[in-house]
């Protein structure tokens, strides 16, 4: 897809964790077309993987046979990635961007899950979550500094 504001690509996978790699590789390829640094490309890949996995694990409860859609919109100054599912919405309380504390002396704070969304909030320039009917979407934007 191309419009007067940039180019867009729509990707669709079935809700299996093994398929997330397909999206990750496509994102890396697209990022390679931009002025994003190698570190930024790795971080964008990480954020997209986290959100796609989130859809598979939480929206669909690891159930195969559901659609996860990723739309990448590439403009000269920004890369916008929208990941959508048609499953269970994310609870409001989990959308907050609070960072998770780490205390080497307190094993109770050594959480082995729940770091995905905080990572995404810390690395992308903007993150929004929206519901449109039964469609749930995370919209993430990374500015491209030329």
């Amino acid at each position, binding site marked *: 897809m191309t419009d007067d504001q940039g180019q867009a690509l729509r990707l669709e996978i079935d809700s299996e964790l093994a398929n997330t790699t397909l999206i990750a590789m496509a994102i890396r390829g697209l990022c390679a077309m931009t002025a994003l640094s190698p570190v930024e490309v790795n971080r964008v890949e990480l954020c997209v993987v986290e959100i796609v996995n989130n859809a598979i694990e939480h929206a669909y409860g690891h159930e195969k046979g559901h659609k996860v859609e990723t739309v990448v919109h590439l403009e000269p100054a920004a890369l916008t990635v929208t990941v959508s599912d048609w499953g269970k919405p994310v609870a409001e309380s989990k959308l907050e961007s609070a960072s998770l504390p780490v205390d080497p002396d307190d094993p109770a704070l050594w*959480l082995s899950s729940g770091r995905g969304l905080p990572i995404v909030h810390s690395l992308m320039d903007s993150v929004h979550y929206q519901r449109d009917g039964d469609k749930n979407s995370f919209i993430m934007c990374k500015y491209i500094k030329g």
Partner: protein
Amino acid sequence: MAFEAINKAGYTVVSMDETRLDAAISESFRIYLFDQIDSGSDRVVIDLGSVRFMDSSGLGTLVATLKKMGGQGALKLAAPQPAVLDLFNLTSMDKLFTISPTVAEAIEG
């Protein structure tokens, strides 16, 4: 997916034939690591040299393994590639783990 454990200078060195430690394999890796600990390994080095990409699930597996050891013995990470090291720094998990540039340095350290 393939994980391997060898004994080296008193350590169990675990490596994997995978470039991505992500949600697709993190649970299998967790089970493998827990089996190593349950089998008596209390000094473990995880060789991350082949891993180009790690997500929060992979990170969670390493944290779960550290907790599983319960403060006994040693769990060290070795040879992380830049994107993996970046994840540790971003999440402050570098405070929890001993991270060495090579397996040899992890064993000697």
